[in-house]
C-alpha cells in the first residue's frame, strides 16, 4: 500500500481557536468585497458593468505603453493588457467600462479602432474578439447571476436540511459560505475582475466545499454511533477527521492537478476562473477540517446535546 498520509492522530479540534480567528478575518474581507460588488465599486467585468472589450493582435511588435498612451488621450479610463508571448505575440486586450447609453459602446469601439488604425498605420491590427455590452444587457446579466446564486444556495440549503440534523446543517452551511466569502475576499484584495465566470466558479466551489464537509460529517456520524458508549465527543470528531484525511488529501490533489493545468494552459479567458477554483479547493479543504467540525464542537460545548 502506497501512502502519502500515514495514519495520523492530529488534534485538529484543539487548534480551532486559531482557525476561528483566521476564518473570521477571511469572511470579514469577503463580506466587505460583497458590499463592494453590490454597490458596483469592485472591479466589475464588462458583462456586469457594460462596456467594450476587444482583443486583437498587431502584425509587428508594439509597445504596450505606446498603445496605452495613444488610446488614453480619448478614453482616460481605458485598460490595456498584453497577452503573454507564450499565448500570442503582439496581442492586446483593450477594455473600457460603464457606457452611459446603449449606443455608447459601439461608438467607443469605433473610436478605439480609428485611433489604432491611424496611429499604427502600416502595422495591421486584426481583431480576434470583440464584446460590446450596453447598460441594459449588463443589468440583465447581473439579475440572472443573482438568481443563479440564490437558486443554487436555496437548493443546497434544502439539501442540507434533508440530509442533516439542525446543528450539523448549520455548521455545513457556515463552512460553505465561509469558503465562498473567503475566495471572494481574496479576489477583491488581488484586484481581480468579477464577471460571470467568477460567479460560476464560486458556485462550483460551493458545491465542492459542501462535498468535503459532507464526507467528514458522514464519518463523524458513523463513528459516534460506533463509539457512543465511550462518550468521548471531541476525541471521536478528531478521530473521524484523521480517518478521512487521506481521502481529503488525495481528492484535493487530483482536483488541483486539473485546475492548475487549466490555469496554465487554459489561456486568458479561463485564468480568473481556474484561479478561483484553485483557491476554492484550498479553502474548501481547510474549512472541512477547521471550520465545519469545530463549529459543531463549540455548539456542543455551549449546550450539550447528543450529536446524531
Amino acid at each position, binding site marked *: 500500500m502506497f501512502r502519502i498520509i500515514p495514519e495520523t492522530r492530529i488534534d485538529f479540534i484543539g487548534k480551532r481557536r486559531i482557525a476561528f480567528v483566521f476564518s473570521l478575518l477571511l469572511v470579514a474581507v469577503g463580506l466587505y468585497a460583497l458590499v463592494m460588488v453590490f454597490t458596483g465599486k469592485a472591479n466589475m467585468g464588462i458583462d456586469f458593468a457594460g462596456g467594450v472589450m476587444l482583443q486583437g493582435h498587431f502584425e509587428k511588435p508594439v509597445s504596450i505603453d505606446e498603445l496605452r498612451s495613444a488610446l488614453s488621450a480619448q478614453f482616460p479610463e481605458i485598460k490595456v493588457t498584453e497577452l503573454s508571448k507564450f499565448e*500570442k505575440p503582439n496581442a492586446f486586450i483593450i477594455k473600457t467600462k460603464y457606457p452611459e447609453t446603449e449606443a455608447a459602446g459601439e461608438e467607443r469601439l469605433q473610436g478605439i479602432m480609428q485611433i489604432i488604425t491611424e496611429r499604427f498605420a502600416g502595422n495591421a491590427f486584426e481583431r480576434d474578439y*470583440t464584446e460590446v455590452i450596453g447598460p441594459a444587457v449588463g443589468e440583465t446579466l447581473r439579475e440572472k447571476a443573482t438568481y443563479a446564486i440564490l437558486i443554487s444556495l436555496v437548493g443546497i440549503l434544502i439539501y442540507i436540511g434533508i440530509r442533516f440534523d439542525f446543528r450539523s446543517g448549520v455548521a455545513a452551511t457556515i463552512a460553505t459560505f465561509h469558503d465562498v466569502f473567503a475566495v471572494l475576499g481574496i479576489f477583491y484584495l488581488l484586484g481581480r475582475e468579477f464577471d460571470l465566470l467568477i460567479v460560476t466558479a464560486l458556485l462550483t466551489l460551493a458545491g465542492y466545499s459542501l462535498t468535503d464537509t459532507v464526507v467528514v460529517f*458522514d464519518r463523524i456520524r458513523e463513528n459516534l454511533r460506533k463509539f457512543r458508549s465511550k462518550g468521548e465527543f471531541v476525541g471521536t470528531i478528531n478521530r473521524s477527521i484523521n480517518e478521512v484525511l487521506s481521502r481529503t488529501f488525495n481528492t484535493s490533489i487530483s482536483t488541483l492537478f*486539473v*485546475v492548475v*493545468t487549466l490555469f496554465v*494552459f487554459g489561456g486568458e479567458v479561463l485564468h480568473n476562473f481556474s484561479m478561483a477554483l484553485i483557491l476554492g479547493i484550498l479553502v474548501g479543504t481547510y474549512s472541512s477540517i477547521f471550520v465545519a467540525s469545530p463549529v459543531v464542537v463549540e455548539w456542543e460545548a455551549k449546550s450539550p446535546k447528543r450529536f446524531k
Partner: protein
Amino acid sequence: MRSQRWRLGITLIIIILAFLAYWDTFKLWTMSDEEEQALQERDPGALLELQQNAIRLGLDLQGGIHVVLRVKTEELELAAREGAVERAIQIIRNRIDGLGVAEPVIQKQGDDRIIVDLPGYTDEQRAEELIGQTALLEFKLLENFENASLLLEKIDSVVHEYEMAQADQPVGDTAVVLSDTLAAADTVADTAEDTVSEELDILAELMGDSAADTFDFGYDESLAGEEDVRPVTSRLEMSLYNNRTATNWPGFVVTKRDRPKIEKWLNLPAVKRLIPIDVEFAWSTRADIRNQRDIYELFLLKRKVVFLGKFLEGISLGRDQFGGYTVDFQLSGDGAARFAQLTGANINKPLAIVIDKKVESAAFINSKIRNRGQITMGSSASINDARNLEIVLKAGALPAPVEIIAKNVVGATLGADSIRKGFYSSLVGLALVLLYIAVYYRFSGVIADVGLIFNIFFLLAVMAGLGATLTMPGIAGIILTIGISVDSNILIFERIREELRTGKTVRASIDAGYQRAFVAIFDSHVTTLITAGALFLFGSGPIRGFAVTLFWGVSISLYTAYVITKAIFDIRKGYRTLSI
C-alpha cells in the same frame, strides 16, 4: 453471476450507443472543406442533419457573431406593438437565411429583445447592416434644383448669423472652451494638409470635367471670407447639368469631412424653422468617390411617400452600363398600375428611392414605367452591399427600428486557439490524474483510470447525442468532471483499504468499501448537480455550456464508479490479496 452478465450486457449496449452517437461528429470532423462543399451542393439537407447530430461548437470555439437587438416598440403606435417583436424575428430570420449561415439561432429574450447567433460567420459589418437596418423602402419625389438652392441660400444667412453669435459669445464655461480649443488645435495640422490637397483636387476637376457640366458654388476653401458669409453653400457643389431635361441635377455634393458640419447646421432649430413642412433633407446612403474625394450627396425630398416598397416583386441583382450593381424589381397588378400612374405624371422629374431615410438611388423619370424598375447603387457599392439590399428587400421591412444593445464577435483564429488550449489542458490534466491514481492505488488505480476514460468517452457521446453545444467553459466543465469523478474512486478505495487494515477478507472489504462510500459519493454528486442546474437555468451562452458538461459528467461518473469499475472489482473479489 447472472447479474454480472446482465450488467456487462447493458454496458456493451451503452458503449455501442456511444459509438453511434459519435458517428456523425466523426464524419463531419474528418471531412475536408472540399468534401463539405461538395456535400453542400449535392445534398444540403444531409449536411444540415450531420451538423445537427455532431457535437456543436459554441461561438467562442468556432468563431461567430452574437448580437442582442432591442426592437424600439416605443416608436410604434400602441395598436401596432402587439406581435411586432415576433414579426421582426420572422423578418430577421428570412434575411439571415439569405446569408447562408449553417445554424443560426434567432430567439426572443424578455419583452423586446432578440438574440441572434451566427456561428461560424465573422463578417461583422455585413451582419450588422443586414440585421440592424429597418429597410423601410419608400419612393419620394425630389424638389428641383432651383427651389433647393433658394432654400439653401436662406439657410446660409441664418447659419452665418448663428456662427457670428457663437463667436461673440462671452466665455461662459471655461472647461468646455478649453477642451474645444484643444480639439481645434489638434485639427489645425490636418486642415492645413487638406487645403493643399483640395486645391489640387479642384485643379484636377477643372481640367478633367467639362465646365458646362460643373455648376460650382465657388467651392474654394482658401476664400475664407466666402466661407464665412455662405457657410453652407460654399461647401456644396453641383455637378451635373442634364441636357435632355435642361435642368440641373437636384443633388448637392458634400465632402465626407464637411458632412458633420452641414448636418449640425441643418439640425439647428432656427434652420429647421426655415424648411417648409412638406420637404426634408436626406443624405445618400454611402460615400462615393469623386475626384479622389469621399463625397456624399445631399437631397431635398418631398415628404410625401409616392410609392411603397411592399409592391416590389421578383427582386434580383443586376449590373448597370457603368458596371455598378443594381437591384432589379418587377411590379404587377395594383403596384404596376400605381407605378405607371406615378411615373407617367412625373416624366422628366427626379425620383428618389429612399431606404431608412437615406437616398439609395435617385434618377430622372424618363418615361412611363409599368412593370419593372431598377435601383442603381452607384459605383461605390460593393457586391455585399448589393446582396444585402437584395436580401432585405426580399425579406421585407422590420415593423419597427431595432438597435444593437450588445454584441460579441469571435474571430475564427481565436476559436481555433481556444480549442487547442482546451484540448491540451484536458489532456495534461487527465494524464496527471491518471498517473497519480495509478501510482497511489496500483492496479486498483489502473481500474479507476479505465473508469475515468469511460467517463469522458460517455460524456462526449451524450453531448453529441443531445446535440449539445461545447464551449470553452464547457471544456473547463469536462476537466472539472475528471477531478470530481476521481473523488468517487478515492472514497471507495480509501474505504476498502481501511477495511483491509482491520483484517477483513478481500471480498468483505470490497463489499464494505462500495457500500459505505456510497452515501458520501451520492451526496457529493447531488450538491454538484444542484449547482449545475441553477447555472443552466440562469446562465447565458458559454456558462450554460459549463453547466451542461458538469451535469452530464457528474451523472455519468456515478454510473462508471458503481457499474463499470465495480464489475471489475467484483471479479477481483475472489483474489486472496488486492493491489490497492
